[in-house]
């Protein structure tokens, strides 16, 4: 009997899979998805909101905000996983309190469509304003949305693997990029000054917390999480939260500090995309003029992963509203909804910056509060008879190899 190495769920085993709607993914893949839920937007748009409030002390509020996020998510998600193991929030509610599930599905459905519209707008801003000004915004919105819908349709497993791949690339490149910009960094620039006391730092924590609370959306996808053998769902979800927040916080704070140190707090505060401006400054000898292109590539991948995940979760939420068995059929219809919202939501970048500065409040209203309601509802309602165990559970006895040739088990059959 060989125990599987870390990161491999038994669901990933060789051997033809049974037909089922959603494949579970490992802790590492879920954590990578969480990381991509946080990183692209925090790297790109968080500095805009935070440095405007807290200047060079912004990275302090970053740490503070992420710390709060970690606390929130590390309590709530394991709680959910403990109360309803192997199920997402809406899924768990569906067997306990169907009406609450529907209403919460509606709230989450709108919130997620809203969030995805924002993500699409952000992709548009990143590419249109910063790189290709002549190309219409709509082009980026449509292409990004189509890709998000396709990856949502492909399911959680390809998304999780893609996220893991890109997370690996990100983790390799972060120190490289920081190392290359070593001579740009003046440490004096980001020493905390606290000219107006802690107040701006605390105020700036609000948007950070808003960006961080997006991690709570993983509550909808917890049903996909397959804990490692010998680990409980609660523990696995805690690991996911800790990994995702830790990585995101590390990378974001590092880039935050480096951006402030390289640009200076005042210049950074008037920039639309300070991190991108910081990337403009980095030169790799005379070989590549700017590493900006490479960074843009990774950012796009990361934000597309985020869009795909949000799209999948949105499908889930709407699926709960309409009680659809496999919510991914909603993937394409949702494209129209998100596109329409992304066209009417934000008119210009100033509006976006202002909107991001109150994102903390909105995220709390639409992500945190419904999650709390759901948790309370789960706590109050008795646990019903579970309809069925997760269909893809490891088949006992599969781990041993019969010494000679074919096993009598029919291969093409779905595991009952």
């Amino acid at each position, binding site marked *: 009997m060989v125990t599987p190495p870390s990161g491999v769920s038994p669901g990933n085993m060789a051997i033809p899979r049974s037909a089922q709607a959603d494949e579970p993914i490992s802790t590492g893949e879920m954590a990578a998805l969480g990381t991509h839920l946080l990183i692209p937007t925090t790297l790109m748009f968080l500095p805009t909101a935070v440095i405007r409030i807290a200047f060079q002390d912004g990275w302090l509020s970053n740490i503070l905000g992420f710390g709060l996020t970690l606390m929130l998510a590390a309590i709530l998600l394991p709680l959910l996983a403990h109360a309803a193991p192997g199920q997402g929030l809406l899924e768990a509610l569906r067997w306990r309190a169907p009406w609450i599930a529907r209403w919460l599905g509606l709230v989450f459905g709108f919130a997620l469509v809203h969030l995805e519209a924002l993500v699409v707008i952000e992709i548009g801003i990143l590419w249109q304003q910063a790189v290709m000004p002549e190309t219409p915004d709509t082009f980026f919105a449509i292409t990004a949305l189509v890709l998000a819908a396709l990856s949502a349709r492909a399911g959680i497993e390809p998304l999780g693997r893609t996220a893991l791949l890109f997370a690996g690339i990100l983790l390799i490149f972060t120190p490289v990029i920081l190392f290359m910009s070593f001579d740009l960094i003046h440490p004096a620039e980001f020493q905390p000054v606290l000219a107006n006391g802690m107040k701006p730092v605390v105020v700036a924590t609000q948007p950070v917390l808003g960006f961080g609370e997006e991690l709570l959306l993983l509550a909808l996808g917890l049903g996909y999480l397959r804990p490692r053998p010998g680990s409980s769902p609660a523990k696995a979800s805690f690991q996911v939260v800790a990994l995702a927040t830790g990585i995101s916080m590390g990378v974001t704070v590092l880039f935050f500090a480096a951006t402030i140190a390289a640009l200076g707090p005042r210049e950074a505060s008037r920039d639309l995309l300070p991190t991108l401006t910081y990337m403009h400054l980095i030169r790799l000898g005379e070989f590549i003029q700017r590493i900006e292109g490479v960074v843009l590539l990774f950012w796009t991948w990361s934000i597309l992963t985020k869009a795909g995940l949000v799209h999948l979760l949105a499908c889930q939420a709407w699926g709960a509203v309409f009680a659809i068995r496999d919510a991914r059929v909603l993937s394409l219809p949702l494209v129209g909804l998100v596109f329409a919202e992304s066209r009417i939501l934000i008119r210009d970048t100033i509006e976006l910056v202002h909107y991001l500065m109150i994102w903390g409040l909105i995220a709390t209203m639409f992500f945190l509060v419904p999650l709390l309601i759901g948790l309370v509802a789960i706590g109050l309602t008795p646990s019903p008879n579970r309809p069925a165990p997760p269909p893809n559970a490891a088949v006992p006895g599969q781990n041993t190899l019969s010494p000679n040739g074919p096993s009598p088990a029919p*291969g093409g059959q779905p595991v009952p």
Partner: protein
Amino acid sequence: MNYSLSRRFRPQAPKQRTPGPHSASPVSTVTPGPNIRPGAPAEGTPPIYSLLDQAAQAPLLPRAEQNLEQLKVMLGNTADLTTRILHSPVLSDQVAALAWIDGLVDSELQSENIIGPLLAGNPTAKKGPPQPLLAVLHQRLISGADVSAGRTWQEVLTGVLTGKTVIFVDRASAAVLVDTRRAPQRDPQEPEVEAVIRGSRDGFTEDLRTNTALIRLHLQSPALRFEEIRLGRQSQIPVNIAYIAGIAHPQLVQEVRARLLRIAPRFSFNVGSGPIEQLIEDHPFSVFPTIHHSERPDKICAQLAEGRVAIVVQGTPVVLTAPTLFWEFLQSPDDYCERPFLASFVRFLRLTMLVASLTLPSIYVALISFHQELVPTVLAIRIAGGRESVPFPALSEAMMMELSFEVLREAGLRIPRPLGQAISIVGILVIGQAAVSAGIVSPIMVVVVALTAVASFVSPSYSVAISLRLLRFPLLITAGIAGLYGIAWVLFALVIHLASLRSFGVPYLSPVVPFIGENWQDTLIRAPIWMTRRRPFLYTRGSTRVAPQLSPRPPVS
């Protein structure tokens, strides 16, 4: 969702097992076993086949001459069917009718082993109590090694068509089939397309048995198994599934078997292993090959020892292996002969070149027509200067050059070898010198195309190189439309697609994603042999390959 294509195979399986009342089409019932007999005629079978089918089900006739005539009728009096009627003294002057296909049979072997004993008087046979004729033939007379009984016409036909000599005797319930095969075949040679520096120098041939023998030669394990399945109702191509029992996962073997059995009764393409590959792969619409192939016995044996299953097909030197991981296309048998550091470096190089062969032209197009700011000033001016006289936009220029390279490559495959030299010189002149001096192509573009071309040949696997070569064109077009964003878009879609692929249930990108750290030892890097302790986890459950403490160390004095 992502296994949907692998599931396509599956709906057949329950139908075959439990043909419900709704299954209108008479799908033949397939029994797993070494030899598959054709059942009831399937749809679209030519009439002659159904006649043959019916005849083949019939029992043998009592008289030898009748049987011979029947065989001639069945084979349509084909010119290469040779018959002979003997009156054998040993069989109390009964008639023995022989038939064989001329050309498939070793006549020396035949006369020595069959005709000689039959015609020579054998006194001992006359004495004892009368024995069943067949037993006499079997046990006393025929000195050939492989002697079997053909009880139905089907068996007789199969035997005759594979080079056996059939002997009909009067009033016998079965015919005797003696193996006298000597098919025309070539000797094992080193395959040209998979040249290695330090590997073995033999290669598979077109003959199935030679190939299995080569595998046995390299891998003399008692656990090595070959299972035979015949594909096609009439063509009856023998296909062997090879695996090492106890290493290959039984369910994997079962899946390979099931997929081959699925196509067995209806298979009618007889050109190499390609059609089989395309009929049993998981994702028929993917551009990426999910089944690997090789002509090298050493490579196949290494694959078998890693727990894979090989599919050896009669008539082609190309042996298929499954499951296949993407990273296999970066690996070459040479890697294991070289020092680990060099091998790892070379693998890294191959990966880089694989990516380069996919993206280089599109990155060039994106950079010079969208993102001029990303090019260093001096280089940018060089490029601009070189393009001053070029009348086409960068995208058209790149498309033109890439297409003309593809044309040259394809032409190079077809042109007879003596002419190839001339053509390649013309190609070099046309693509390079003349195009540049005529001012229709910029010099940098030539450099890019040449680099791409060279990069696409770095991969040890031809099949993945051509997949990427094909993908280069959509990428080029998107890069021409939306610059780097287009590249990012297509690459993301590509990664999603790759991540959703599976080869016989094994994720295509494993062990990178899903991450299995243990198996990284032989993926992108090639760790020292003594460190690669475990077999790939996903299809062997990570059984131990190299015992611990195998690392070499100087003698303790």
